[in-house]
């Protein structure tokens, strides 16, 4: 990366103390995002991707907490900021888009009110100017007749339109990083592509980097520059999208790619990975994927693999340990 990364996460660890012991939702992960880059974070439900996004924006619900590591935004540490300082970062420097646009918007306020409120909180502009900016934003996200619709309530918009409003709200104060947590999962398939394209276009125009959390590999393939594959709270593989999709190195990623049905293939059965991702209170020793891995060997069961550089990616798999004799 030529410039300094906009987001740098080092050895992040998120824990949930429960009555029966501490659950580790995110276990010592490290990654970075370059300015303007789209990083996809992909994985099954429960892999820890949403939790990572929540940690970055500082909205982990108690009793969960960040138990270790650091998160830095443009070189400045943000994981240990007091609440009020972090509040200023949110919205202004980091924006968020959540999964369900219907529940993300307060039904009792007009979208204009909710937009201008966000603008006024972060930017030193007048009410009138905030109003103008709000209308401009709505136009940008593709809402027709923005000057009229600014006084409408959320329930007067369709699902796709609402998500556009949410995107406008996330971009309202011109943040440098957007965390998009499953932004299209709750939408009709026909609209998903539009919304994803919109996010990509706007972020590029505004110069914002995106951390795109999803379980949909297709979205990643369309949109992301790099992708991180998460499994059981850890990063299995992280690298450029082309590399990870076309030439997956980690056995888990390989299994994921193989299990996506491809148009034109006439194989009889869909490939699948046997077993299921372990629950947080039953993570195996060593590499978390080892019970399901067809290529596992002794070391996999004993030691947890560190991310190792292979080509342009980092892979956490003992298969690629140079000392072990390289790739098998």
């Amino acid at each position, binding site marked *: 990366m030529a410039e300094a990364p906009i987001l740098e996460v080092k050895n992040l660890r998120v824990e949930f103390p429960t009555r029966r012991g501490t659950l580790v939702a995110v276990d010592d992960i490290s990654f970075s995002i370059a300015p303007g880059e789209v990083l996809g974070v992909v994985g099954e439900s429960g892999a820890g991707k949403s939790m990572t996004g929540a940690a970055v924006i500082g909205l982990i619900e108690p009793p969960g907490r960040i138990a270790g590591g650091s998160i830095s935004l443009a070189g400045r540490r943000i994981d240990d900021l007091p609440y009020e300082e972090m509040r200023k970062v*949110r919205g202004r420097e980091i924006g*968020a888009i*959540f999964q369900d646009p219907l529940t993300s918007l307060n*039904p009792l306020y007009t979208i204009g009110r909710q937009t201008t409120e966000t603008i006024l909180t972060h930017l030193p502009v007048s009410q009138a100017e905030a109003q103008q900016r709000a209308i401009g934003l709505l136009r940008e996200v593709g809402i027709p007749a923005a000057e009229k619709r600014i006084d409408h309530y959320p329930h*007067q918009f369709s699902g796709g*339109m609402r998500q556009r409003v949410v995107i406008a709200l996330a971009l309202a104060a011109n943040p440098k990083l957007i965390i998009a947590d499953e932004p299209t999962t709750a939408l009709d398939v*026909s609209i998903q592509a539009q919304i994803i394209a919109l996010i990509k276009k706007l972020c590029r125009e505004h110069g914002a980097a995106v951390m795109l959390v999803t379980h949909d590999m297709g979205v990643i393939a369309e949109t992301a520059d790099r992708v991180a594959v998460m499994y059981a709270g850890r990063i299995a593989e992280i690298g450029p999208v082309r590399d990870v999709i076309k030439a997956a190195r980690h056995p888990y990623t390989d299994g994921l790619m193989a299990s996506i049905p491809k148009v034109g293939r006439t194989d009889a059965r869909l490939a699948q990975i046997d077993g299921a991702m372990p629950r947080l209170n039953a993570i195996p020793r060593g590499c978390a994927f080892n019970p399901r891995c067809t290529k596992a060997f002794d070391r996999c069961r004993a030691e947890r693999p560190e991310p190792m550089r292979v080509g342009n990616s980092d892979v956490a798999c003992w298969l690629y340990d140079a000392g072990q004799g390289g790739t098998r």
Partner: protein
Amino acid sequence: MIAFVVQRLLQSVLVMLAVAFISFALFRYIGDPVLIMLGQDFTREQYEMLVRDLGLDQPFYVQFAKFVVSAVQGEFGISYRLARPVAQLIAERLPATLELSMMAALLALTIGVPMGVYTGLRRDSWLSRFFLTISLVGVSLPTFLIGILLILVFAVQLGVLPSFGRGDVVKLGSWSTGFLTTSGLKALVLPAVTLCLFQLTLIMRLVRSEMLEVLRTDYIKFARARGLQNRAVNFGHALKNTLVPVITITGLQIGGIIAFAIVTETVFQWPGMGLLFIQSVNNADVPVMAAYLLLVGFFFVVINLVVDLLYYVVDPRLRIDRGAASGH
């Protein structure tokens, strides 16, 4: 909008008729009014003459119609016990009950809502826990016992407040008010406090639980993710959304005040409708019971109607049924 109002009005009229029907059934078929009026010795002719005079030999629907018509005109018959027109008795007693109830409702709202908001926002402070404990005790204390305890402390031991009656009242037209005299106000204190306590705890717990629900929603999470200030999040968004359902339920609580007024008036010998009702139950004074039922039913129906209309005004989702939803 008009359609909604008309529909609700019609519904209310129907419910009123149902209540009137029950009241009428009480009046006409419970006990034998003729027997009660004639006393011990009477001849068959006297019985039958009285039956004709009272119109009790008419068909059922005719009697019901006459009942409804007289009720609308304020004519409820004669009290068995006191041999005076029921309407007059009610007119005398109504101001006392209404003043007491309004005072109690006011107290319950102005103390209960802030307490509820506070315990919702600051869940773990000691003050919150204190309020919650008090509220639990409040719900378990029967109203009459509270009254007795207050009388014991303030009237018997300390001697600062009167333990029964209304004090001096001033007549304004047909309304007698205790607000304008010191003795009237002093007499109002203990009964109003007694009456409001139960409602206060209910309102507080309701507001708190609504607040907690609202604080867990996605739109609050999104508001925080946009970096809105705490004050805006808690009072601008959370509070407004909390109060909407609270309004309706509070309106319905007025019913509780009317019901518990019966108890309070008995404890303090407050000359209101509740005391009248209990005395009539004790003495099988059916006309008074029937009239009370009608009146209370009327109050309830009116309150329900007002609450529905209020909800309609406050929640935009109900207002616009032909939304301008369009496009994607």
